[in-house]
């Protein structure tokens, strides 16, 4: 998100937060968020694809809502109004093509209106079909929705599949497939949108999802402050803020939100963007001549990724604050934690909680309740390694993200075993304050170093260049 967009969104949020306090608030938030989906999606090399991806984001959201909502509630008035507003926004976004380049809502020229209406017809038939047939077996359709989202996720994240899909789209459009690249399908915010949708589908399966109207559901999924970089809120918490009446923002609320926004802007546009200049990357990794400077570049990356990501979170929380929302925290001084478990409890917290809720806890329960119970260390190993592997894959299906996940999975397991071993031995030293403080400081430094070294996998595109950096860092290459 550029500074200009952040300023626009801040102004919009301030206006909505201060003025719009009636029942239309949810529709306005949904409308602005839907417009933001088109506005923020970057241009792509394939003609009008940016427009189509934004439209499909909205379509998938409506589809997931249909899947997760009891059939008798689908036709309620507010849902139909929301559907009409979404329809109007997509048509509006498309009609901006007639204003000419530079005035379109999407980054490139949208398709002709007649093509959009053909798409709408097919989409409407599809959605009506789903709404009709899901009555027969709602659980089956929930599974199908789950599979569909995971499938799209894989297509986007596996470079080979993304390239092949881009080639297919180019072929259909009569363009040369040879220019296809995985980056052709840069779908803004899909990782976050998909995980919010999966969360609602899974909660519907387990019966924990509250009843949510379409405008509320859409607003939750594409809420514009957190569209591009999270946090991944939980719907039951989000709708509490959305439904709160009356909305009255005090001067203090505004100043706290404003301060948070300023902190976020400083972190992102001053600290992170400055560090980005000198941060480790695939080019300078091979050019750096000495171990000392390689450590400098690695630490620059280590702090750049923190300030970048936590800066965006602060911005989202700040803008959310102007609207009367308290979005969840995503970072809590992660580099000051004395062990990896605490690090992961304070780094990208909403993503970690997502995986804890939908993978770690269920798998742990399953392994502990089976007929042939595994030993506790084996269960810990499997669940921690699996969770971290999935978190790695969430970033992209590449060897380096897999290795980064394994790095943390193994680290968490070793730290868990070490803690079990050392805890009783340290109990005798509880009264020795300075010794405890020193051990905590040492643990914090070691944890930070381990995390920083892990970024070598994350920052670089392939294991060979990462290995080169490791050798250089330790003076071997």
């Amino acid at each position, binding site marked *: 998100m550029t500074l200009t967009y952040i300023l626009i969104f801040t102004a919009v949020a301030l206006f909505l937060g201060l003025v719009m306090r009636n029942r239309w608030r949810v529709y306005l938030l949904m409308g602005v968020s839907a417009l933001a989906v088109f506005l923020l999606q970057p241009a792509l090399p394939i003609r009008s694809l940016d427009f189509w991806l934004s439209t499909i984001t909205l379509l998938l959201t409506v589809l997931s809502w249909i899947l997760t909502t009891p059939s008798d509630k689908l036709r309620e008035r507010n849902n139909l109004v929301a559907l009409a507003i979404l329809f109007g926004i997509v048509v509006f976004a498309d009609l901006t093509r007639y204003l000419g380049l530079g005035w379109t809502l999407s980054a490139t020229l949208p398709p002709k209106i007649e093509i959009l209406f053909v798409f709408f017809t097919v989409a409407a038939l599809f959605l009506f079909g789903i709404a009709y047939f899901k009555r027969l077996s709602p659980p089956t359709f929930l599974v199908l929705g789950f599979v569909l989202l995971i499938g799209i996720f894989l297509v986007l994240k596996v470079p080979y599949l993304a390239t092949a899909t881009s080639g297919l789209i180019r072929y259909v459009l009569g363009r040369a497939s040879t220019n296809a690249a995985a980056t052709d399908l840069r779908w803004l915010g899909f990782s976050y949108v998909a995980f919010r949708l999966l969360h609602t589908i899974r909660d519907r399966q387990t019966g924990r999802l509250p009843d949510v109207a379409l405008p509320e559901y859409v607003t939750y999924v594409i809420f514009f402050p957190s569209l591009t970089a999270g946090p991944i809120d939980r719907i039951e918490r989000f709708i509490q803020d959305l439904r709160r009446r009356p909305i009255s923002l005090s001067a*203090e*609320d*505004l*100043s706290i939100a404003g301060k948070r926004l300023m902190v976020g802007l400083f972190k992102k546009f001053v600290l992170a963007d400055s560090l980005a200049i000198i941060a480790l990357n695939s080019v300078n990794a091979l*050019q750096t*001549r000495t171990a000392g400077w390689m450590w400098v570049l690695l630490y620059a990356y280590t702090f750049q990724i923190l300030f970048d990501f936590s800066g965006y979170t602060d911005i989202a929380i700040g803008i959310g604050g102007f609207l009367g929302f308290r979005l969840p925290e995503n970072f809590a001084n992660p580099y000051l934690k004395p062990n990896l478990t605490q690090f992961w409890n304070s780094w990208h917290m909403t993503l970690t909680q997502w995986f804890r809720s939908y993978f770690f806890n269920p798998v742990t329960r399953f392994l502990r309740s089976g007929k042939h119970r595994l030993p506790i260390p084996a269960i810990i190993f499997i669940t921690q390694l699996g969770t971290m592997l999935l978190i790695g894959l969430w970033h992209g299906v590449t060897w380096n993200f897999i290795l980064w996940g394994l790095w943390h999975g193994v680290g968490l397991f070793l730290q868990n075993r070490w803690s079990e071993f050392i805890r009783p031995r340290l109990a005798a030293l509880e009264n020795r304050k300075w010794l405890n403080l020193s051990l905590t400081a040492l643990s914090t430094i070691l944890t930070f170093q381990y995390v920083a070294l892990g970024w070598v996998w994350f920052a670089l595109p392939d294991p060979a260049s990462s290995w080169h950096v490791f050798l250089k860092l330790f003076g071997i290459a």
Partner: protein
Amino acid sequence: MAPFCSGSTKLINPYRVLAKGLILFIVFNLVFAVVYIPYGKFSLYNILSPGRERFPFAEEVPEKIYNLTITSLDTMFSSHIVASPKSKDEYRVMLLGDSSVWGASLRPEDTLAGQLDAANLITCDGRKVHVYNLGYPRNSATKDALILVEAVRYEPDLIVWITTLGSLTPDRRLDHPIVQSNPVQVYELSRKYNLEFDLSAVGFYHVTFMEKTVFGYRSDIFDWARLQLYGVLWAATGIDQVYRNSFKVYSLPELTEDISFFDWQPPTFDPQLLSLDVLEAGMEIAGSTPLILVNEPILIITGQKNSDVRYDVSYPRWVYDQYRQVMDDESRKNGWQYIDLWDLVPSAEFWGDTDLHLTPAGEARFAERLIPYIQSASCP
């Protein structure tokens, strides 16, 4: 709605915060404009990262070469290795000149300064000779004089000023980014050394009051900050431009039959048109520090169509020959130490990408020829 931060109880008025911020911003800008803060003199180079071996200048995107074009003299010098403290046993030689001295396409060690430095010369009194590259692309004697004014602050023991005809033509008196970007220094140079610059000329940059504020300087300040950060990558990689690993023999261009030079026509031009006054000012700026003036080598094309009337793409023979004669006469008249090396490297095999830049082998030959003069200057 409950406050976001329960620990905070003091009521804050956001409008007052905005108003205070705005007032502070305006006051800070006005103070900066009135009392100029020489931010360019502050640098992390020579403290956290080693100084650059030549002035920051970029022909490629900065992200690729960890370098960017800087025209503020303060920032240029503070990022240069010449700004590091001079040791007692050091004999400082500073080279001035254009891109041929700066070393386009060359690694720092392959430039003229790099090769002279690698010669590990020792003066008669046992001091180590260190040669600093203070060249900057595009020739202009005024630009060199401005650099020289700053350079003398860094205790040179010998200055070698490498010029050519192109540095002394009237169009180059003010038409150079460094000259344009440092108007205060140009005024000072003009006033102190009685140089007649046409400061009303179109293109000469006059700074307005608004441009003296932090807001006005925002682009320069941003570039200064970026340069500090690129110091890390310069230190880590030793890269400051795209280096050529191999040089093809320069393919000779076709020479035109036109023998005019700007609006000068044969058989002679008025010597007063050359910036000889700037050279004279340079001698005064150097003061008691010895200064050797060198006419840099040019590519001499022979045996080709029109090579009987032109030496190369830049110079018709008549104008260059007269220029050499003028320089010779002026040097003798004024007592300048002048070395004419115009035909030192005539062959195309020593020229790199253009007829302006030597290959490392060409620079080696140039350095070899200069070494005796440096030794002689260091052992009077």
